[in-house]
């Protein structure tokens, strides 16, 4: 990489940390208002209980669990882009790995509270720990989620240490920034030993985070799969969730890249080619996931087995047909068709396909949760209409969840460089340490 371009990365990243403009402030205020409204809705729910929602004795889960599964799904982004591509030595990941790692952390920070909100009585969460049964997939999910969140924080932080040192040494920063970067930079000066320790830490995290990520998606799938309900109790539900997470995770990364690339003027550092590579990954995972979805429904349709048949009828032509076919067209048919045509090689085409996949995957989670609950084994009481229509409280909290996710992302991008400076410009630290541009010792340990 030429020195001119190396300096550009650092300069452009430092520029993104400058004072926020009018558009930035307006967006933060707007998102903050949505989050505040969601808090008002949540306080209302705390006051009158889950009666504020459309959940009932039949629909014990609703959009909160849909949101939980959706955000857990897109959290796969960090593990995929950063860890898998790091282990496969794909260097094109460098400018986008931090975005992906941040998506993982922020999506988990939204997913976790959705469970507490769904519980209705958050004070009872402690009972899951005090009286938790190791046999219960719910406790597995708690253990898995906390391990994944802790690992994701580490995996976001560790590769950021050299960049934090760059920021620490940048003159003219405010006092709080100097203090923050100085503390987090861990006295990094770019010695060979520091590189070696950094490489070990990042390599271990890249290996460990993958099975942990697979476990969280599998265990989340088992929350459904271990229940003897039509549509849930399936042997392929674990891998089904993992592939679905990979699909929606790549779509989330593409969406984030397109937005940050445009608003932070990062076109030079994240070329279209990177988006095309990600689009190919999205196409691959989309096709595999479509294969899983076909498997999921064809078996039930062909055998017409007891409880499965009415569930399938509800989805194909019944009360959930709109959501089901919406999911098929928006989540699979349209984006996959776009990606195999020349449209899928343009930024606009890739962006639209990724947004469609995001919407389709939320609908897919809705289809997983709600129609099964509308198909109970016990006949419903006379006159009961088995329908679930979320209330304003549930929609408000859902909107708040998405707004909180975006807000965390925007605030993060104002405090930390969204592109890994030292990974894009690998000559930076050896040069500052007074060493040759790529010293032989450091070159062997550079990830």
């Amino acid at each position: 990489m030429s020195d001119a371009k190396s300096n550009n990365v650092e300069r452009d990243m430092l520029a993104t940390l400058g004072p926020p403009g009018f558009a930035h402030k307006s967006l933060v205020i707007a998102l903050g208002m949505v989050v505040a409204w969601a808090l008002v809705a949540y306080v209302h729910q705390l006051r009158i209980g889950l009666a504020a929602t459309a959940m009932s004795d039949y629909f014990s889960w609703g959009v909160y669990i849909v949101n939980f599964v959706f955000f857990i799904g897109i959290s796969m982004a960090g593990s995929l882009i950063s860890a898998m591509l790091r282990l496969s030595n794909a260097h094109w990941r460098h400018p986008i790995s931090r975005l992906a790692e941040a998506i993982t952390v922020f999506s988990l920070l939204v997913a976790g509270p959705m469970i507490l909100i769904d519980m209705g009585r958050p004070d009872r969460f402690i009972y899951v720990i005090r009286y938790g049964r190791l046999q219960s997939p719910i406790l597995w999910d708690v253990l898995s989620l906390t391990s994944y969140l802790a690992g994701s924080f580490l995996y976001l932080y560790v590769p950021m240490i050299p960049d934090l040192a760059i920021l620490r040494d940048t003159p003219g920063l405010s006092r709080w920034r100097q203090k923050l970067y100085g503390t987090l930079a861990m006295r990094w000066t770019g010695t060979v030993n520091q590189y070696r320790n950094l490489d070990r830490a990042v390599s271990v995290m890249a290996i460990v985070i993958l099975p942990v990520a697979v476990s969280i998606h599998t265990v989340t799938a088992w929350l459904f799969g271990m229940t003897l309900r039509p549509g849930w109790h399936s042997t392929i539900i674990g891998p089904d969730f993992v592939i679905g997470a990979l699909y929606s995770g790549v779509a989330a990364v593409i969406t984030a890249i397109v937005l940050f690339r445009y608003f932070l003027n990062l076109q030079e550092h994240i070329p279209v080619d990177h988006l095309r590579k990600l689009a190919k990954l999205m196409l691959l995972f989309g096709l595999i996931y479509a294969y899983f979805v076909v498997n999921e429904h064809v078996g039930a349709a062909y055998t017409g087995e007891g409880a499965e048949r009415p569930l399938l009828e509800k989805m194909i032509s019944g009360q959930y047909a709109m959501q089901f076919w919406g999911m098929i067209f928006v989540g699979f048919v349209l984006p996959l068709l776009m990606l195999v045509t020349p449209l899928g090689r343009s930024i606009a085409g890739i962006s639209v396909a990724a947004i469609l996949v995001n919407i389709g995957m939320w609908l897919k989670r809705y289809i997983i949760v709600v129609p099964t609950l509308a198909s109970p084994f016990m006949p419903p009481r006379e006159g009961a209409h088995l329908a679930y229509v979320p209330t304003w409280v549930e929609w408000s909290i859902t909107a708040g969840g998405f707004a909180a996710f975006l807000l965390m992302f925007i605030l993060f991008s104002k405090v930390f460089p969204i592109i890994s400076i030292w990974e894009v410009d690998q000559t930076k630290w050896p040069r500052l340490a007074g060493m040759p541009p790529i010293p032989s010792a450091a070159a062997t340990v550079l990830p």
Partner: protein
Amino acid sequence: MKPIPLITLILLLWPWAAIAQTAQPAISLSTDIEDGKKMVQASVSLNGKPLENVVLQYFVQRTFGNMLFGQDTTLDDGTSAVAFPSDLPAASDGKLHFVVRIKTPAQYSAVSASAGFAGDVQPPPVTEFPRALWAPHAPLALTVSIFVILAGVWLSYFFVVSRILAIRKGG
């Protein structure tokens, strides 16, 4: 006429109230053999003197409450007895726990006594639940698997933290 102060009234009535409170019959329980038959016997006395014609109800404690198994009236010596429930399994301590309560006269109906005597039918031995998915304790293989996986993951995290601290030390 001047009204009597309230405090004086309380002080005057206090001893009477105390006497009225203590004037309650006492019930003592024992077991006895009558005509070769095991009996549960209750003796009722008031101020140390046997109380006659008191109807007593005999209960035995079960898991979800007290089960009535007999009723008898005290004789002139203050005793009454009913047959020992030899067919009832004892509690986990090997005893049958009896409760005897006065039915009449009504003013003594709050008076009761309880005692435990060795039962004739011992309870079935308490068997521990096996480790199973449905039981209170998880199967050992599951428990070990979860802890090994968690230990592996968190030890890796600690290793990463140790590398971060090594970076801080400059090497």
